[in-house]
């Protein structure tokens, strides 16, 4: 069955037709090298400048502070590795959280091998970092705080402005992985004291394979990809002009529609969450109920396992994703769900559904009906559920 209801927009989104249309001329007409002198290359260069402006505007940055990358992962790698190199004279200590994306966590592990000391902050049961813990973790060797703007699995939005303030007070750089937040919540790098910020186009109906790292002017930064003089000599490689153009259009669009779109999403989200919690027994909402991305819904259904649930939903035309990592090359349950205190077997039975702009109430009603049925069927299959029911019966007797 063809996917009819796509509820995995936190993984990636459909590239909107408007974005594709904007990209097309840069494949077959204005395909010149943007670093070249001739007229066809100049048109590419102008297109890049425009996209840079469109993006800078969304976060209140200057255009020359936006550096294009191949996506969020590269931006995260760059921010951490280059800061570690550029500030080794100051110290080797980096503070992050236990619930970051792997692009941050695995980079941190890599840096540990290179001599970095990393503090991984705990989060509370809603996924929020504790500002006092953060304060306490800062020491004279601290060169960087890297805390995600919003979590990709449970949707929790961190207190970024407060973190920025703390970083500023202590003279420590602040990087935020805003891959999930960009275009979903208002961001102002000055107001929030953000020094570096990562983002990825394909999360906001832009193309895959393009992202950016915002680097505040004055931050010492080293290159991550060495070579040609592109991106103010900071990131080598022939510019992905169609990708950059598409990103610009997607960013502009996301900013313009943000208020209305997220208002609608929040309503749908809360409607759905409420119904699921009411109508599916032994179910828990993961993540903060309020400080939450407008499009994120994450549930744990006790006694069942996520992959089975996902496949069955898929057979009904519904695409979601799971905290269960069987799909992503590792069999460990999600580090995020474990960090907010879920036991292994409950973390395994999680489902993330993330809204996109086309999703309607009817879609969600249909999804709920399917979930109810599938969860019921899987519980019938589950020895855990059997034990649970037996135990309950016994305790009643």
């Amino acid at each position, binding site marked *: 069955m063809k996917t009819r209801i796509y509820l995995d927009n936190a993984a990636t989104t459909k590239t909107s037709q408007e974005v594709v249309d904007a990209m097309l001329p840069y494949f077959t007409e204005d395909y010149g090298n943007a670093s070249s*002198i001739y007229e066809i290359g*100049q048109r590419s260069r102008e297109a890049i400048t425009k996209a840079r402006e469109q993006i800078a505007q969304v976060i209140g940055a200057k255009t020359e502070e936006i550096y294009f990358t191949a996506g969020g992962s590269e931006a995260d790698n760059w921010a951490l590795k280059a800061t570690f190199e*550029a500030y080794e004279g100051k110290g080797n200590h980096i503070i992050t959280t236990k619930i970051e994306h792997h692009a941050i966590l695995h980079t941190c592990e890599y840096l540990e091998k290179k001599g970095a000391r990393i503090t991984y902050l705990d989060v509370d049961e809603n996924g929020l970092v504790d500002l006092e813990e953060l304060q306490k973790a800062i020491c004279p060797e601290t060169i960087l705080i890297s805390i995600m703007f919003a979590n990709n699995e449970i949707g929790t939005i961190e207190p970024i402005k407060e973190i920025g303030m703390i970083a500023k007070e202590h003279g420590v750089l602040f990087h935020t992985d805003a891959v999930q937040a960009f275009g979903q919540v208002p961001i102002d790098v000055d107001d929030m004291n953000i020094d570096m910020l990562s983002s990825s186009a394909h999360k906001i109906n832009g193309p895959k394979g393009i992202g950016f790292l915002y680097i505040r002017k004055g931050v*010492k930064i*080293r*290159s991550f990809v*060495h070579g040609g003089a592109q991106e103010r*000599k*900071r990131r080598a490689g022939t510019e992905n002009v169609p990708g950059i153009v598409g990103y610009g259009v997607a960013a502009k669009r996301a900013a313009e529609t943000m208020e209305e779109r997220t208002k609608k999403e929040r309503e749908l989200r809360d409607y759905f969450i409420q119904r699921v919690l009411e109508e599916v027994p032994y179910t828990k909402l993961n993540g903060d109920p309020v400080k939450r991305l407008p499009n994120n819904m994450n549930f744990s259904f006790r006694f069942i396992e996520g992959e089975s649930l996902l496949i069955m939903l898929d057979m009904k035309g519904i695409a979601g994703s799971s905290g269960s990592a069987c799909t992503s090359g590792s069999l460990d349950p999600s580090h995020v769900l474990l960090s907010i205190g879920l036991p292994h077997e409950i973390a395994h039975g999680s489902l993330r559904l993330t809204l996109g702009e086309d999703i309607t109430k009817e879609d969600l009603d249909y999804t709920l009906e399917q979930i109810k049925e599938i969860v019921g069927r899987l519980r019938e299959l589950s020895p855990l559920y059997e034990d649970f029911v037996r135990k309950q019966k016994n305790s009643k007797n």
Partner: protein
Amino acid sequence: MYSEKVMDHFQNPRNVGEIENASGVGTVGNAKCGDIMRIYLDIDENQIIKDCKFKTFGCGAAVATSSMATELVKGKTIQEALQVTNKAVMEALDGLPPVKVHCSLLAEEAIHAALWDYAEKHGIKIEGLTKPKSDIHEGEEEEEEEEY
């Protein structure tokens, strides 16, 4: 990349050529990019620049600034010609891209070199003119050199 004025002076450079028995000739090179400019001046007994010609081996900006500089000094007195700085030339061309600022320095230096040659040939001293370097290493407009 270039303004319309730059493109105009590049495509139709004014005062290209040599002056036979010129009053002063100046040739300068820019060590930074290897470009070379030569200016010929024809100066009359009232120290008025009656004619000015140039030859340039260089980029589009170098050609355009030479052309504009010759236009600006033509008909001027020596003292007035000294006021034709690279900034004045750039302004007259509606600006140059930052990496091309050094090209306009070539024009200024070439005029100074030609005036110096004139002064030496005639055994006079020109107020405010110092011996031009034949190689220009300007320190300004240098991009901050950082590690990558």
